[in-house]
């Protein structure tokens, strides 16, 4: 499963990239959704990924999380683990958390249970069978409920939440997992402007201790994140840099902003 660690430029482990994609391609029925994609995410980095519909943003996340296997290329986690050999549960246990484009929460469980089930811990069936809630975990849930501001609704069935509330709950579940890397797909969809800004702040505050990749179409949101931006087009990186810089590039304007 894991490979020999190999250093890039002899850097100490803390300075090594968290995630390293090299020459990744994936075709669906001959259509290249990801085409020779290379990407490096530093430890603690906040990165925004933008690109037109169908650029391959979600597919990139599928590959990182082991949902989709690339045809070629390398995906390395902390320089040592080959993510292409793992599946979704493995990558989640490694510390990669994901929020989906379409919010998916467990509709038949309460808000509280949704968070509890996401909390970091032993995931084996037998551990789950004999699990007893600990005080520390209850406290953590309270804390998370505060962050996502769903404290009043903690006993509500998640299926009855509004779209935006579900988005928040899913963010809460993501935080509960305590991941090293957060993959966040279009978190702002269905949120009010104020909430969008709150989300941006939240993500900014998370970054540093953890790495975060955010996919978003909302440019105000991306601007608010104030971070390095990667523009994806036809499955590969078109441009990288500050938002102002990339949005000034003619090729970016042509494929994306110009439309």
């Amino acid at each position, binding site marked *: 499963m894991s490979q020999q660690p190999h250093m890039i430029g002899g850097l100490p482990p803390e300075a090594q990239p968290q995630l390293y994609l090299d020459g990744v391609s994936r075709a669906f029925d001959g259509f290249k959704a990801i085409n020779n994609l290379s990407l490096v995410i530093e430890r603690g980095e906040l990165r925004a990924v933008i690109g037109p519909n169908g650029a391959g943003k979600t597919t990139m996340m599928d590959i990182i999380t082991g949902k989709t296997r690339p045809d070629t290329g390398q995906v390395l986690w902390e320089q040592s683990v080959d993510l292409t050999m793992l*599946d979704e549960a493995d990558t*989640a246990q490694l510390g990669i958390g994901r929020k*989906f484009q379409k919010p998916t929460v*467990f*509709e*038949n*469980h309460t808000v509280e249970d949704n968070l509890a089930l996401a909390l970091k811990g032993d995931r084996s069936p037998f551990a789950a*069978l004999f699990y007893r809630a600990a005080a520390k975990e209850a406290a953590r849930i309270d804390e998370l409920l505060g962050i996502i501001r769903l404290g009043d609704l903690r006993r509500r069935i998640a299926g*009855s939440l509004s779209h935006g509330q579900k988005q928040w709950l899913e963010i809460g*579940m993501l935080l509960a997992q305590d991941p090293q890397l957060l993959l966040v797909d279009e978190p702002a969809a269905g949120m009010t402007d104020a909430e969008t800004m709150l989300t941006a702040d939240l993500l900014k505050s998370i970054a540093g201790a953890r790495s975060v990749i955010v996919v978003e179409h909302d440019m105000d949101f991306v601007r608010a994140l104030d971070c390095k931006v990667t523009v994806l087009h036809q499955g590969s990186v078109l441009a990288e840099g500050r938002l102002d810089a990339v949005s000034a590039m003619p090729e970016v304007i042509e494929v994306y902003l110009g439309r």
Partner: protein
Amino acid sequence: MAASRLIDRRMGIFLAGLFVLTVAVPVGNLWIAGQPVPTYLVALIGKYLCYALLAVALDLVWGYCGILSLGHGAFFALGGYAMGMYLMREIGARGVYANPVLPDFMVFIGWKHLPWYWLGFDHFWLAAIMVVAVPGALAFVFGWFAFRSRVTGVYLSIITQAMTYALMLAFFRNEMGFGGNNGLTDFKDILGFDLASHETKVGLMMLSAVALAAGLLLARWITTSRLGKVLVCLRDAESRTRFLGYRVEHYKLFIFTVSAMMAGVAGALYVPQVGIINPSEFSTANSIEIVIWVALGGRGTLVGAALGAILVAGAKTLLTGWFPELWLFALGALFVLVTIALPNGVLGALEGGIGRLRRGTPTREAEA
């Protein structure tokens, strides 16, 4: 604390009813003059209780985990065959051919030796282990393949059906050594108790009630644990559950195997009470009928599943007695009506109705 987790209101009511039954039936059959509870009724009730346990087993996988198994008839039958093998060997030299070792049907087809897989079945304890081990092992192996490769939904239903069908064909073969068409029958006694006696029948019925209660509590314990919550997660959003780091296939495998074992126990209790086990127990129709018990009672309610089994089986006994022509019409209509009009089953509809009356307005959950 633990009790309140396991026994909610509906479970409490059901268990109380079951307790009354286990006391009233023996008393009515054995001790009250004039026998207000005839012995055939005792055996019938015992049979229903086995069905109820089988329904609880299916509810565990279907109600809580979304696996519509059309293979539970097979697990039930395998448990039944394991018990039947013990009962056959118990007959000893009292068979028609008076062979002390070989069951009659083997003598009849000219076998000289007991096949290896029949060895040891003269010991009750071995048979008792096999009752859970064989269905459990089959479910484990089958599930290991199926869940690992992420076969879900109707595809899973279809291949469980194929498994059951293949087993039925296999058990119909005389060469299998399970009595072919006729199956195993003509049992004499169990652990030395005469199967024809009133006392044994009452005892078996009480044992079935205890097994049902134990099965319900076990199922309840599992479903109210965190594991049970994870099962509901993967039922509703399997992919999402994986992304939280849960190995969905392990959870499914666990519950599928436990459920198969429970079905095996139900089959094992069933066989001595009806006195026969044959390959028709493996038929497709049987396995689907179990599903309608659960659907009628209410998926994911455990108690509802048990009630559904008893209701449908009772109706079957009555209707096939009165108007045999009508039974399949009624059963067919039940399938259609329950799926369309009663998606939450009788129990769901009852409790939903009561809840709405109490609150006065429909809740948002009920709409969702």
